[in-house]
């Protein structure tokens, strides 16, 4: 029985991102199955051997007893007359002795060339027999003879006549092996069959037990993949005592990671606030002082303030992007997109822009909610800004075989002027270089590019086939 096929699931391992998987060690189930398989086979083999040996010995001793009984029965039937002549028996202890070739033979030989054979043994060659001293007995077998393999029992007897003479003769009873062996073979076959059945049953039982006792491990693995897929926050089932050490540590790790991310984001938000408010003060004060004398100086300072502001904004947004995470929860797209579109429709109410969405049911983003909002928000705001009347948002999940989390395709199109093909490169380039941006244009796109980059996706800018304006499409790979 193949241990691996008996267990339907090879417990999925939680460590999926090992760089080079040399050779996966055998699964616990396979190990246990192989080990118990060998032990069971050895044990059952030994039991079989012992039983068959014991049976053989028992059979031999039974044979010995039987042949001895026959011999004694014959001896009591022999008689010696007063002249010392041996008189052959007139009855046989078993009818097989009278049937020629029955496999049960009796031969007697004695003084004065006495020789007697049971009817079954007439005409057969028993030259291998040797007379024995009175009182001696032999049990021999198996030996090869013309009649096949034989066991025989011979017994030497001395008969005292009335005349005071002693007549010696030897009685031998033989049996062919096939009679003994026949019984033995059947026994062995039965033994093998029963032991095999027992072995299979024990193996199946063993595998069931194994499955049952490995269930918690499989549960941990499946809970873990739920956490990875983002369907669950923690390993939240009840686990057996042996595993709680592991699961509690994993939970602590996950919580810690999340807390650290939150703390990091808050720090960044505080930093943003404390940097940008002074910048806002400087800017508004400079812009409000319109005196001619200061005008020139103000412009130069304002320019620097603008650069500082953009650098701060860009770098903070970049630092806040958390990127791909192993334990990210799934953020449904539909809700976030609706909020954004409603907000933007409010802000761009004067433009009367109609935004249509086509969001596949259940499409989700695996990462920070904030990153999703930045990604969609910047793309949509851009589209609202440039659109003349229509914006189209399309979101599709892209499941990939063998990956737990499906990929994501997001495209935002507008019916605005679009971006000329030779300008696309420039638009994207400008996004990458945070410090050389055109005022009010591009920081959003560079944030989008950074997020896409952090999630190892790609951003494509081309022409919208349906609306005729620009189309920004983002593709995030399945993981």
């Amino acid at each position, binding site marked *: 029985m193949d241990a691996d096929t008996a267990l339907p699931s090879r417990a999925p391992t939680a460590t999926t991102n090992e760089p080079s998987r040399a050779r996966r060690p055998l699964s616990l189930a396979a190990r246990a199955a192989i080990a118990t398989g060998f032990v069971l086979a050895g044990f059952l083999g030994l039991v079989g051997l012992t039983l068959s040996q014991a049976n053989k010995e028992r059979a031999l001793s039974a044979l010995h007893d039987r042949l001895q009984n026959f011999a004694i029965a014959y001896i009591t039937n022999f008689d010696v007359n007063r002249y010392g002549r041996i008189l052959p028996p007139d009855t046989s202890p078993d009818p097989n002795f009278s049937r020629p070739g029955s496999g049960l033979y009796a031969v007697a030989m004695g003084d004065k060339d006495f020789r007697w054979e049971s009817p079954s043994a007439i005409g057969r060659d028993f030259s291998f027999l040797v007379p024995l001293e009175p009182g001696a007995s032999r049990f021999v077998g198996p030996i090869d003879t013309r009649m096949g393999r034989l066991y025989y029992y011979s017994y030497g007897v001395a008969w005292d006549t009335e005349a005071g003479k002693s007549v010696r003769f030897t009685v031998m009873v033989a049996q062919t092996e096939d009679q003994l062996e026949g019984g033995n073979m059947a026994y062995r076959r039965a033994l093998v069959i029963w032991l095999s059945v027992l072995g299979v049953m024990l193996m199946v039982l063993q595998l069931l037990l194994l499955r049952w006792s490995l269930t918690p491990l499989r549960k941990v693995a499946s809970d873990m993949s739920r956490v990875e897929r983002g369907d669950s926050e923690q390993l939240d089932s009840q686990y057996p005592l042996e595993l709680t050490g592991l699961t509690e540590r994993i939970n602590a790790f996950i919580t810690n990671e999340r807390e650290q991310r939150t703390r990091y984001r808050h720090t960044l*938000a505080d930093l*943003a*606030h404390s940097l*940008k*408010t002074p*910048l*806002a*003060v*400087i*800017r*508004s*004060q400079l*812009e*409000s002082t319109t005196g001619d004398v200061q005008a020139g100086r103000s412009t130069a300072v304002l320019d620097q*303030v603008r650069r500082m*502001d953009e650098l701060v*904004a860009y770098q*903070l*947004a970049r630092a*806040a992007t958390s990127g791909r995470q192993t334990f990210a929860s799934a953020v449904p797209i539909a809700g*976030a997109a609706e*909020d*954004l579109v*409603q*907000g933007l429709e*409010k*802000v761009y*109410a*004067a433009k*009367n822009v109609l935004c249509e969405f086509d969001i596949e049911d259940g499409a989700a983003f695996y990462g920070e*909610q*904030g990153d999703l*909002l*930045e990604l*969609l*928000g*910047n793309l949509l705001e851009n589209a609202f800004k440039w659109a003349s009347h229509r914006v189209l948002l399309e979101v599709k999940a892209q499941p990939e075989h063998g990956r737990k989390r499906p990929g994501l395709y997001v495209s935002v199109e507008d019916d605005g002027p679009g971006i000329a093909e030779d300008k696309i490169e420039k638009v994207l380039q400008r996004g990458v270089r945070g410090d050389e941006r055109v005022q009010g244009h591009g920081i959003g796109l560079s944030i989008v590019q950074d997020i896409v980059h952090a999630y190892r996706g790609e951003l494509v800018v081309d022409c919208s086939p349906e609306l005729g304006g620009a189309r920004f499409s983002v593709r995030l790979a399945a993981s």
Partner: protein
Amino acid sequence: MRILLVEDEAPLRETLAARLKRDGFAVDAAQDGEEGIYLGREVPFDLAIIDLGLPKMSGMDLVKALREAGQRYPILILTARGSWQDKVEGLKYGADDYLVKPFHVEELLARINALVRRASGWSKPILACGVIKLDTTAQTVTVEGKLVDLTSYEYKVLEYLMLHAGELVSKADLTEHIYQQDFDRDSNVLEVFIGRLRRKLDPEGTLKPIETVRGRGYRFAIPRTDGDDE
């Protein structure tokens, strides 16, 4: 136009308030959310500018509270973080627009004008009632294409009347929305402004753009020619 400005950073609040006043707005400044909610409920503002990072009561809660108190005037939120999370949340709770700090004061003024206009049902930056056109961006007024020279307060009075063209505007409304609290509220001043406006807009006395509703107030009588965006 009366504006509520809630900003905790004193220098920014003062510069902005000064700049808005110079542009003819009446400004009530509050330094935290609690003061903001008090003023926001009591005074009939035309617009509120609310910073999201406020002490005592966050800007987000203030927006929510004002909307829950039934205040309908447009709200513009200022955010330092500039994250979409803040923007979306703010818009969801009832803000109408957002501006990321630091911003150009010009940008802020443009947004304020657009919001106030939109709130009174005008979708384009030029308010047109017959031959009288008021450009809220350039802050100029033309009659039959000819520029009319108005003082800042005259412009504000006309803008307010035209924004609410067709509606009755009481003297109290006008004074409240145009003047600072500490300004001289003598209704004669208002009558003087209205008189001057009538003379400047309609020297021949044929258009009669501003109607006096005896004992109740004024009404801009020429119907809107541009109400809907095409």
